[in-house]
C-alpha cells in the first residue's frame, strides 16, 4: 500500500515538472504584461515539433535540441510582443483575449494543415528505460525532464532576482507606472518577458518529446493544468505556479489511483475550489514575485 502511494507521488511529481514549465510561462506573462496567453499550449506544440524534426532529420537528441527550440521560441516571443501584443496593450481586456485566442487557433490549424493530425514519436535509448528502486520505478526520460524543468525554473528565479533586467521585470510587474518613471522601457521588458515565457514552453516541448507523442492538439493536454496552477499559485507568482504545478501533478496521480482513472481532474479542481474559498488570491496570498 505504501509502495502504491509512493509510486503515485513519484508519478505526480514527475509530470508536475512539465506542468510547471508551462504554467511558469503563463504566470510570467500575466505578471509582467498583464495579459492571459491562451496560445501557450501551442508554443509547447511548436517546441515538440522542432525537437521532432531535429531528431528525425539530423539525429539530434530531443533533450539536446532544447538549445535550438528555446532560442527560436524566444525570438518568436519577442516578435509577437513587438508586432502584435504591443498594439493592443492599454486598451480594455477584450482585444488582448481575442488576440492570444486567435493566435492559438491560427497556430493549431496551421499545424493541422502543414503537419497533419498524425502522432509523431521520437524514440531515444532512454525513452523506455526506468530506474528501479525496490518496488518503485522512475522513468528516465521523465526524470531528466523533471530535473531540467527544475533547473530552468531555478535559473529564471536567479535571473529575476539578481540581474538588472530581471529586477526591471519585477518592477514593471509590481507598478508599471513607477517603473516607467524610473527609466525602465516597458516594451523592452515585455519583449524579454514574452520571449522567456515562450522559451520555457519550447523547453517543455523538447523535454516532452522523448516520452510523449507530438500532434497539433497536444498543447491542450497541458495548458488546462497550467491555467489551474497559475490561479492556484497566485496569478503572476512564479514560485507559486511552480509549487502549485507539482501539487496538482501529485493530486491528479493520487486521484487516479484512489478515486478513479476518469476522475483525476476532479481532485485537482476540488483542490482549486477549496484553495480559492480559503485563500481567494491563491496559495501565495496575492503576492507577486
Amino acid at each position, binding site marked *: 500500500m505504501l509502495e502504491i502511494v509512493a509510486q503515485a507521488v513519484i508519478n505526480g511529481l514527475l*509530470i508536475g515538472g*512539465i*506542468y510547471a514549465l508551462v504554467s511558469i510561462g503563463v504566470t510570467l506573462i500575466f505578471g509582467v504584461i498583464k495579459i492571459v496567453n491562451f496560445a501557450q499550449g501551442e508554443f509547447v506544440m511548436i517546441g515538440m515539433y522542432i525537437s521532432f524534426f531535429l531528431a528525425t532529420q539530423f539525429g539530434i537528441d530531443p533533450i539536446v535540441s532544447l538549445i535550438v527550440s528555446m532560442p527560436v521560441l524566444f525570438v518568436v516571443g519577442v516578435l509577437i510582443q513587438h508586432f502584435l501584443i504591443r498594439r493592443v496593450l492599454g486598451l480594455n481586456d477584450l482585444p488582448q483575449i481575442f488576440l492570444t485566442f486567435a493566435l492559438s487557433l491560427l497556430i493549431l490549424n496551421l499545424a493541422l494543415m502543414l503537419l*497533419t493530425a498524425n502522432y509523431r*514519436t521520437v*524514440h531515444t535509448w532512454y*525513452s523506455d528505460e526506468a530506474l528501479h528502486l525496490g518496488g518503485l520505478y522512475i522513468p528516465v526520460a521523465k526524470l531528466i525532464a523533471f530535473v531540467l524543468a527544475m533547473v530552468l525554473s531555478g535559473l529564471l528565479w536567479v535571473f529575476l532576482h539578481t540581474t538588472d533586467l530581471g529586477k526591471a521585470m519585477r518592477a514593471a510587474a509590481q507598478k508599471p507606472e513607477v517603473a516607467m518613471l524610473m527609466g525602465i522601457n516597458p516594451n523592452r521588458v515585455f519583449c524579454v518577458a514574452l520571449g522567456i515565457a515562450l522559451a520555457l514552453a519550447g523547453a517543455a516541448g523538447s523535454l516532452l518529446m522523448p516520452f510523449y*507523442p507530438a500532434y497539433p492538439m497536444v498543447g491542450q493536454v497541458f495548458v488546462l493544468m497550467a491555467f489551474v496552477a497559475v490561479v492556484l499559485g497566485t496569478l503572476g507568482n512564479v514560485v507559486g505556479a511552480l509549487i502549485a504545478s507539482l501539487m496538482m501533478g501529485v493530486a491528479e496521480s493520487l486521484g*487516479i489511483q484512489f478515486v478513479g482513472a476518469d476522475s483525476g481532474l476532479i481532485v485537482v479542481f476540488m483542490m482549486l475550489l477549496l484553495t480559492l474559498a480559503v485563500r481567494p488570491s491563491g496559495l501565495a496570498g496575492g503576492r507577486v514575485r
Partner: protein
Amino acid sequence: MKRSQRQTTLKRHSRRKFLKAAGSAMAAGAFGAYPLRGWAADPVNIGGLYPVTGSMAQIGVGIVAAAKLAVEMVNEAGGIKSLGGAKMNLIISDIQSDTTVTRTETDRLISSNKLSAIHGCFASAFTLIASEVAERAKMPLLTGSSSDQLNKGRSYTFTPFARASQFAKAQLQMSKLVGDSPKVAVIFENTAFGTSTSNGLKELAPGEGVEIVMFEPYSAGFADAGPLINKVKASGANALFSVSYLNDLILIVRTVKQVGLNIAINGGSGGFVIPDFYKNVGKLAEGLQGVAHWNHDMDANAQKVNVEYKKRTGDFLFEYAGGLVAQTFMIADALERAGSADPQKVRDALTTLDVSSGYAAMAPGGKVKFGPDGKNIYGYPVGVQWQNGDLASVFPKADARAPLMKT
C-alpha cells in the same frame, strides 16, 4: 445537374449531343466524378465513402488506394461479363471524418450519380449514417464496419465480416493463450466507443471463464499513463485489454515497459491493427495482440493482393483495406449474377451471394453468405499479433499462420 441534363441532351441534335458529350468527358477528366463512356458496354458505377481528409485521413487514404486496386483487378479480369464486359468505375466521395458531411456526401453521391452499389465508411459512426441514407435511397451498401447496429432493421446493408460482439468474444478467448486462468484488467476511455466495447467484454467474460480483476474508465488524452498503470499493477492482472485510441495506447505501452510489468496487452481492433501503429510505437509493439476482421496472411489470394498493395503504397494491406478488396469482388459477383446495373437487382443478387473461393471469399474462414440481417453467417474475427513489424494471424487455431510469440 448531371442526370436531368444528360437525358435532355439525348433528345437534341446529334452534333450538339456530340459537343455536350465531349464537354462532359472533359469535365470528367477535370473532376473525376463523372463516368466516362467507353466504346463497348457502359461502365458500372460503384460509390465509395471514406474520410480522405480530417482526423482519419491517413487511414482513409490507405483504404481508397485499396478500393482503386480492387476495381483495377476486376477490370483487368474482364470486367462484368454478363454486362458485355462492362468496366467497373469507382466514384470516391470524401466524408472528411465528419458525421454531418457524411450525411450530405452520401446523399449527394447517390443522387448525382447512376450507381449500382456503394461501400464505406471505415468508422462505424459514419457508416451508421451512410447506411440510413442508403436504405432510404434503396442503394445496397457493403461495409467492414463492425457495429452490431448495422444489422438491425436494414435490408440494403451488408456486413461480410465479424461483428463487434464477436470481437469481444475472440479477445476474451485470446487471453487464454497466455495462461489457463487469465486475470484481465480492462481499461477504456470514457467515450461511447470505449464504454460500449468494454461493456461487451464484461458481459461475455463469465461465459468464457475469464476473470476481470479491474474494470476502469479513464479520461482520454491524459498527460501521463503512470498512475493508471500503477493501478493495473496493483490489481494483479496478467492480461491487459486497452480500449483506447492511438495516443493513449502509445503512452500505456511505453509505461508498461518502464514499469517492467509482465502482462499480455490486447489492443482490440481499429487503430491498433494499422501500419501506422507500428510506425509510432516501434519495437515496443512487438508481441502486442489484437483482433481483426481481415488479415493479409489468411490465404494465397490475400497474400497476392498484399504484395501488389505493398508495391504501390509501401505498407502492408491492413484489415479494413484488405476487407474492402473482398467487398469489391462481392459486388462484382452480384453484378455478374444480376446481369444488370440496377441497384435493386444488385441488392437481390447480394442476398443470394454464396462464395467460397476467389477474391470475394477473402474472409476468415473463406466463406461469405449473407443472412436476412445482412450479416455474413460464416463471419468471425482473427486474433493477430505484431511480429517483426508485421501482423500475424495467431488465433483461432485453424486460422493461425504463425505461433504466438510469448512476451
